[in-house]
């Protein structure tokens, strides 16, 4: 796009766009870069309740990677992340595609899928805690129906507790993904559908080979939204299990907050968050380069 205005002097080019981007530049540089550097700096100190500058080298990082709870947290995040990403995308797209079939009650269904997003995590966690509780939730209900050997107690079984949290997480967040997908589907030119139909391509193939590739930007938005939510997942775990049984459902963000505010060990919390940030950067930078930096539109 920018290439269309060659003749003007370089600094004047796009003046309006540059002015309009001042808030973005400020946020990116001052808030995100500034605060990140601040965090990294203090992760090398032994800051407790307040930031201080007593440097202790890599001590915080050594302790971090020797802590069982942190290792469990990282493992949980990977499992939760992969499952949540796939399920949210599939479910979100499927529901959006179904809603986009000129159905009756579209508004009603959309609201049903979306409403969980409006509710606070604290109580969401509590409700799912009840539903998944073996003594008065689903297991109890099924057993009452006569299936007495039925066992379903994810929140009290350390091996599968993370999936219990996943059920609630998907419930809460997939409606929004559905909306984004729906917005994307509505942005697709109807000529495309006509053309596909004229060519006799089945609907599902049109989705798979024509529509989804066209919706790539929308998928990227959804992906970033889900992934950033995953990295930051905290409230839900606190509300549902407090990280239990034992430490079986701990997640990194919870480690960071607990260390910063509960344990009053800012240094340790900052070290953990620096590790989180580092892994995000390692994954995102190459991707962002390919995505945004490499090629130009038009």
């Amino acid at each position, binding site marked *: 796009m920018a290439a269309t205005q060659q003749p003007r002097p370089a600094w004047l080019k796009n003046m309006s766009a540059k002015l309009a981007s001042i808030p973005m530049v400020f946020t990116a540089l001052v808030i995100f870069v500034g605060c990140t550097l601040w965090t990294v700096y203090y992760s090398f100190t032994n800051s*407790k309740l307040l930031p201080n500058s007593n440097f202790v080298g890599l001590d915080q990082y050594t302790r971090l990677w020797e802590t*069982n*709870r942190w290792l469990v947290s990282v493992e949980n995040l990977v499992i939760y992340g992969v499952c949540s990403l796939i399920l949210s995308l599939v479910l979100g797209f499927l529901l959006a595609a179904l809603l986009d079939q000129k159905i009756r009650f579209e508004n009603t269904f959309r609201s049903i899928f979306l409403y969980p997003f409006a509710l606070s995590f604290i109580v969401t966690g509590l409700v799912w805690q009840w539903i998944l*509780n073996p003594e008065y939730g689903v297991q109890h209900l099924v057993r009452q129906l006569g299936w007495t050997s039925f066992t379903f107690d994810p929140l009290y079984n*350390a091996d599968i507790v993370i999936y219990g949290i996943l059920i609630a997480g998907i419930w809460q967040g997939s409606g929004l993904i559905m909306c984004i997908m729906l917005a994307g589907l509505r942005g697709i030119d109807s000529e495309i559908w006509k053309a596909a139909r004229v060519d006799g391509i089945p609907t599902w193939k049109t989705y798979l080979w024509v529509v989804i590739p066209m919706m790539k930007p929308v998928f990227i938005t959804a992906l970033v939204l889900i992934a950033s939510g995953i990295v930051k997942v905290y409230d839900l775990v606190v509300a549902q299990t*407090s990280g239990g049984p034992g430490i079986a459902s701990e997640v990194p963000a919870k480690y960071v907050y607990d260390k910063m505010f509960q344990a009053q060990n800012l240094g340790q919390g900052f070290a953990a968050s620096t590790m989180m940030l580092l892994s995000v950067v390692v994954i995102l930078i190459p991707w962002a380069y390919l995505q945004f930096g490499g090629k130009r539109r038009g």
Partner: protein
Amino acid sequence: MKMIKTVLAATVALGLSQAVYATELEVTHWWTSGGEAAAVTELAKAFDASGDKWKDGAIAGSGGTARPIIISRIMGGDPMGATQLNHGKQAEELIAAGLLLDLTEVAEKEKWREVIKPVSLLDSCTVNGKVYCAPLNIHSWQWLWLSHKAFADAKVEVPKNWDELVAAAPKLEAAGKVPLAVGQQPWQSAGVFNVMAIAIAGMDSWKAVFVDKKAEVATGAEFAKVFAAADQARKMSAKTNVQDWNQATNLVITGGAGGQIMGDWAQGEFQLANQTAGKDYTCLPGLGVNEVISTGGDAFYFPVVKDKEKTEAQKRLAALMVSQQVQVAFNLKKGSLPVRSDIDLNTANDCMKKGLKILADGKILPDVNQTLTPDTVTQIEDLIVEFWNDQKISPADAQARFAKIISAEK
């Protein structure tokens, strides 16, 4: 009850509108449940009655939620007039940074060193000979709550101490009961562990580890007994399928569980369910083994403010909090013990009276939060909750890890 609250709120509002010249103090605290709010109202009423104005800034959720808010406000240069914090090691850095008001003058004038019992509460507020906080109440953890119904169902006598409960466990289980209810939240199992450490290892060993941080005692035979008992306890509680502490208390109330180790705040749940101590439930301080209580509790700190008027009001509020009249009114509502012994609490219930007696006998220990840094406390929490829920960790392994955490504390 609701009527009373409304009336109270109305009178408070009236009081506020009249006291035009009063100094307004914003007070941050995390007492938000019904009973707690009623207790705070007593504080506010007393403060307003003295001519100043209490501006309430309640934020539920002690550690993780309220702390960043309190610290931010202080750092932002626009602090509240007073704030609740658990007394102990939490505020030391704020004091060192000169952000908290020195209350020594108030303490001397009001003779805090003489009236506050146990005096260790005041010591927790004292840094380098200066007093920085006003202790308000004592909460103790050392209570074993037992359900009479559960033991009747299992056809065993209600135990008089921990060992009898352990002995009764198989029969309770045979009757479909959970012998010991422990919720999943980490602070609960860690709390149980601390209670057991005091009761089983005894005061001296406990002090050696939690106060003097002697690793050799932490690895020694007395603490091996503690971990062995914790091993029994985790097996007895393995079938507790609840998260919140009061859901666990509810198991005791309904007879679904034999007992629960929980702080004195559990009392409120029994009262609400119309249960009577001695008839429907029994409370055993110190697990019936070692009748001691730890003296944790709440204290208020006063951030330094520029306004001289406010500083004076802060001092008035500090004096008021420790005063006899407020101590009685507040603690009766809160269900906690007062910080001074020269007052009469004849309306207290049986369990509270037991606590008062132990307190009067001086069988007290500091709370873990007073002797260890929050960092160490949470590390112990992490370890204990992991041990509690993962039978693969042997008591010996857990003890070794525990000793390592203790020895790392400086």
